[in-house]
């Protein structure tokens, strides 16, 4: 899978980068700044997959997860092939992010 599918998210104000991983957390494509090492992203992806899987016990068919940090947010959304994860600043343009995510998900599922 090419990282080019994730490119539309780059244009969203407040989005730092994105990646997608399989249901078990294996990294499929990545469009993150260089300062994030691939190993770190793979670790995060695996843990996100684990977290979402376990959340199924609390919520049937959990659709996604959002994590809030001091200066960042990490949004993960389920799709047929796995998870689309978007790292943002504290206050991203949610409307544009939603729109771009829909387009990226459509491309990933195609």
């Amino acid at each position: 899978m090419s990282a080019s599918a994730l490119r539309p998210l780059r244009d969203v104000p407040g989005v730092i980068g994105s990646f997608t991983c399989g249901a078990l957390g294996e990294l499929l494509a990545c469009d993150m700044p260089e300062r994030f090492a691939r190993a770190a992203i793979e670790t995060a992806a695996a843990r996100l997959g684990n977290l979402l899987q376990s959340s199924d016990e609390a919520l049937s068919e959990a659709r996604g997860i959002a994590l809030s940090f001091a200066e960042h947010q990490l949004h993960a959304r389920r799709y047929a092939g796995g998870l689309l994860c978007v790292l943002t600043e504290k206050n991203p343009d949610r409307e544009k992010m939603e729109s771009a995510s829909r387009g990226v998900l459509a491309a990933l599922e195609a």
Partner: protein
Amino acid sequence: MAALPNLHEFDAASSADDVAPEGFAIRLPSAQLGDLIQINCLNRVRGAFRVSSEGRQGHLFFEGGQLIHADFGAVTGLDAVVQMLGWRGGAIEPCHAPWPPESSIDMGADALLLCAAQRLDEMPLRPSHGAEDLTTKVVRRVAITDQAGLDGAAGEPEIELRPSVVPAYAQLRQLQVAQLTFDGVVRQLKSGATLDLADTGFFSQRMAASIGEALGLGDCHAVFLDGPVEGVVVIKGRSVVATRGNKADLAFILSRLGLA
């Protein structure tokens, strides 16, 4: 809403006699004490407030974006907040109450109001007092060392805040709540919350922290698990609070957390 100066700044400013009290007297028809707590925490107000109603009197102490202490007679902490939240009318104003030597409340505003709202639900119904006291609460932000200012706010401009400015904290009562320590010890389960919610909160918070660590993002202070109808919000403050409910009821919490 514009951020208002902290009360300790008024202390310094009021040392000069020619400095007029800053801030507004605010009349909020139907305002709730929970609204004041949220506003003061949001504005990181530092100061003491006297809450009075029908001859009863309590105090709230704010610092660093949190309500750190509350007292009502011999009752302190969350118990005092719960008592005062049950009052239906009265006044709230800054005061000179001695600063507490230590904090009696170890929760952030959101967690505090969640717990207090659940506790209120469990309180016995109040005896009837005849006609309901629906008097307007008054929140005065004036120089707390200037007693004349406290008593003479009538000439100051009044502003009315639309109810939508402050989320209706009564919505919190609809939510299941599990509060636990960082070690996973369950402190409270409210509104039908089960140990499953506590487990979810504990695991989510731990896993989110490890994700933040992996990416160098620091500690994670909130997690939202998004289901088709319901959601779970896990907030990490001085304890871990997991809240489960309809997504519409969670919306304002998510908004406060910057996740919506």
